[in-house]
């Protein structure tokens, strides 16, 4: 009997469908080559997927590194199959009570692997995950154990797209199952576009039932602006930079007074690399939602290694750049809308008159908008432009409202609702449409959530957020006039599209969805930290029922409300609350001892 058959026979009973699929596959994806040491190695698409010198030794080093983070009770999930040297090594390093699953992204490559070298009994104990990304995500989500992912990069690289799809789907599935309550500290900016988004994020997290501490730096805006009055730019920059450092220290102090489970910083949050490194040393988990165009604002280059997790509104090149700059984990998290703010309005007649027009644009006067918008002024329709930073844009002056004053969110909403066609033109510093048109701006989601009809410039990431039935887009500026004519003539069509877009936002694109996704991603990557809280495994009731909880703790846990999350610090506080004359058990003393060390680890100041 050949090796392939022997291996398939070993798993036939448990994975009959997988065995059939392998049998039917033609294989031939891997090119087998002998390593210097004598054991078989392999290449795929011309790249080595195991060491050309000693695959076993390489696999052993990789596994030793991975296993450090792997805890009992977790299901390890390996991405990247190769010739399974690394899986074999990981099995050998497995902690007691842990299980191992391997994701098979390519049945043909798997078939090749099974025919190359004899695999031991460990092979039959692996939980194989296979199918399309939805099926694999469902299989993984159904496992009753925290997941710990291990990516063996050389073999996983050719399947990066499949793994990304699996990740997205799994995140979505896990997001629907979150019911634990986290304490999240949201660190906001001093001012700017990410400030309102911070408010939406805070509200979304609270709506999801989490406790939120908002480290609000907008209260310092006036002081920060004061430095702008210095004539010498060196003075201005020096003072603003030092001020940001002070705020960074202030953030650490605030975090230290009420340590959160997660520090979520929004773009432009005044957090220095030194402060972030300090937080890491003190075991605080940090994430940044970088709601900026990474090509325009480049401060991420300095901060990349500082945050544990980065979430960006762009993909591919942005992620590569962040990883090159030292970011440990980067994920995609698009913008969204807040339906409690971005909503359909019924306007009074005078409001309709003031804010209404056939065509409108709300936004700042970036170079491309100054160049493009005048081309769409016509006697065939009324056109109003709202917003600030339009100084010197003479061609826009006749249609600029309120002399180019900055307008607030309420006014924006009135304009969106009163306008027949809202133009949504992503900003850029050139003279035409954005040449690197990838991310989707918040305005797209906000207009859709408001039930307003929009024409938006096409973006690479738009189709995965909205279909053509939900959003009308254009790829060139000269398409726009005819689109305006067409849609001005079709109010019913406009309403249908706008309503469909709004439904899509409510279904998938609110800040609550984004925060669920973000937490699901973090829970997946940190199964024993955030993951266990999100799975609701830290409540008094669940802890008391767990067989892994020492029996001496059970009476103590019963004194908490069943759904109350209980941490070491809560147990210690309960012991202290009994008063100084209480007789302390050995369990009590150990808790007090551990708590004294925990407090020191988390003491930021």
């Amino acid at each position: 009997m050949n090796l392939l058959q022997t291996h398939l026979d070993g798993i036939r009973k448990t994975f009959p469908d997988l065995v059939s699929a392998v049998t039917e596959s033609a294989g031939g994806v891997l090119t087998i080559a002998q390593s210097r040491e004598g054991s078989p190695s392999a290449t795929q698409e011309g790249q080595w997927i195991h060491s050309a010198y000693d695959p076993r030794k390489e696999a052993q080093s990789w596994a030793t590194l991975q296993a450090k983070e792997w805890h009992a009770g977790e299901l390890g999930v390996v991405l990247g199959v190769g010739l399974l040297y690394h899986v074999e090594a990981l099995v050998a390093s497995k902690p007691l009570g842990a299980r191992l699953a391997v994701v098979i992204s390519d049945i043909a490559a798997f078939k090749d692997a099974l025919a190359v070298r004899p695999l031991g009994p460990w092979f039959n104990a692996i939980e194989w995950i296979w199918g399309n990304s939805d099926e694999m995500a469902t299989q993984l989500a159904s496992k009753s154990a925290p997941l710990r992912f291990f990516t063996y990069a050389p073999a996983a690289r050719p399947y990066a797209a499949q793994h990304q799809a699996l990740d997205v789907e799994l995140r979505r599935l896990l997001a629907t199952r979150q019911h634990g309550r986290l304490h999240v500290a949201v660190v906001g900016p001093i001012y700017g576009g990410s400030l309102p988004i911070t408010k939406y994020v805070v509200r979304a997290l609270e709506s999801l039932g989490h406790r939120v501490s908002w480290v609000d730096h907008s209260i310092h805006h006036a002081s920060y602006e004061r430095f702008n009055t210095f004539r010498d730019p060196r003075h201005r920059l020096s003072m603003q930079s030092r001020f940001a450092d002070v705020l960074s220290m202030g953030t650490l102090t605030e975090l230290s007074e009420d340590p959160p489970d997660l520090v979520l910083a929004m773009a432009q949050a005044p957090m220095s690399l030194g402060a972030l490194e300090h937080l890491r040393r003190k075991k605080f988990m940090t994430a940044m939602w970088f709601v900026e165009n990474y090509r325009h604002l480049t401060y991420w280059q300095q901060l990349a290694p500082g945050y544990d997790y980065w979430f960006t509104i762009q993909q591919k090149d942005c992620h590569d750049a962040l990883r090159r700059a030292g970011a440990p984990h980067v994920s995609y998290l698009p913008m969204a809308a807040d339906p409690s703010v971005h909503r359909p309005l019924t306007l009074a007649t005078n409001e309709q008159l003031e804010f209404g027009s056939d065509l409108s644009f709300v936004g700042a006067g970036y170079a491309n908008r100054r160049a493009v918008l005048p081309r769409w002024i016509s006697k065939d329709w009324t056109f109003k432009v709202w917003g600030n930073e339009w100084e010197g844009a003479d061609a826009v002056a006749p249609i600029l409202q309120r002399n180019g004053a900055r307008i607030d969110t309420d006014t924006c909403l009135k304009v969106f609702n009163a306008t027949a066609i809202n133009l949504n033109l992503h900003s850029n510093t050139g003279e035409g449409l954005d040449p690197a048109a990838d991310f989707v701006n918040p305005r797209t989601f906000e207009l859709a959530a408001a039930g307003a009809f929009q024409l938006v410039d096409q973006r690479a990431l738009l189709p995965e957020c909205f279909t053509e039935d939900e959003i009308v887009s254009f790829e060139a500026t000269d398409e726009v006039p005819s689109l305006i004519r067409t849609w001005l003539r079709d109010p019913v069509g406009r309403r249908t599209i706008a309503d469909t877009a709004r439904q899509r936002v409510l279904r998938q694109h609110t800040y609550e969805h984004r925060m669920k996704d973000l937490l699901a991603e973090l829970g997946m990557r940190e199964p024993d930290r955030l993951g266990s809280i999100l799975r609701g495994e830290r409540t008094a009731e669940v802890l008391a029922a767990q067989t892994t909880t020492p029996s001496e703790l059970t009476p103590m846990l019963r004194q908490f409300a069943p759904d109350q999350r209980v941490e070491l610090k809560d147990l210690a506080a309960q012991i202290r609350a009994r008063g100084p004359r209480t007789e302390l058990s050995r369990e009590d003393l150990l808790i007090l001892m551990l708590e004294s060390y925990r407090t020191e680890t988390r003491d930021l100041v």
Partner: protein
Amino acid sequence: MSRTLVIQLARLGDLVQTMPMITALRKQYPRDTIDLLCPEPLRDLGTLIPGLDRVIGWDGARWHRWAERAIQGIQPDQRKEIEQELAALCPHIYDRAFVLNQHTRAIVAGTLLAKECVGPLAQGPLSEQLTPWAAYVREIARTRRSNRIHLSDAFCGMCGLLPPGTPPRCLTPLISPSRNLEQIGRGGGPWIGIIVGAGDPARLVPVDVWRAWIVRFLAVLPRGRVVLIGHGAECERARDIQQPLPPSILGRIWDITGQTTIHELAQTLTRCQHVIGSDTGPLHLAAAVGTPTLGWYFARARVHETGPYGSGHRIWQAQSEDGGPVVPATWPIEPSLDVLLSESPRTQPQWSQWTSQTDEWGTYYSEAGQSSAPPREREALWHELSHAMPV
């Protein structure tokens, strides 16, 4: 015969300052078993303290790891691991523990490892009521007023003991020094140890001040030798001190920063005729091995709080008008050289000079130009605080 555990989980200086208490304890209970629990990295230092039967290392790093894991919930295997560690440290429970730190972990350790715990808290680990001695030490640390009772003696008071009278000395380390260290103290002299660094950056003497001190020292005492003392992280500082010095001077400097274990450090300090510096921990150790010290105290360092124990140590204390931390503008280079030349040290503007003495109530410091009689309030304090002593 009773079994006693002394718990000192603070830093090097505090451990050295525990020596008088251990000496007094041994004097009072010559037949008892007396063990010491100290931080694992300082265990070697503990073995140099006379009067002890056993030194037990407390692995704080391991407790940190356990605490980090316990944040995710206490698992039975972890509980088992902790109990195994405690059983390995102390197979049999002690009759009593003397706890010298006011930190929860030391008090809890005492409660875990002994039947009776004598410490800073009057009624066990959950109590907030301090014993009179502990309250006194905390008050001194908080208000930073002159502590006329040395911390070493306060440790004795906390444990119901009187100071030993004669300052104890460390045991001589039983090691063969490396070739580099072997030369120290041989030929020429005097050999002066300079402690180049300080645990608190605010207490660092500037590199150029040390350089100036060395140049002046070797000018006034041409046969003198300098030993640069410090840990691994202070090697660069030692190099900076030496960099611009002429080669003729360099031949008279021994740089041993980063090269010594605690036993080797103790041995090196023994071979020096004086040790000078601003880092209180090594100064305490120098005093404990019997070497006179010259301390420059500034920033938050206070002679009455952390002056070396015993007689004949000299401290220059930077003066501030409001009693707050001081950044000195001048340095007592010449006055400290006067001491090495056995001359009466001249005065240094903005610094006061103090010399230590020892009597039946322990060590005290008296200011140059003032009476060297012991401060009167000391004895009164002893009576007041000892009246309500726990033991």
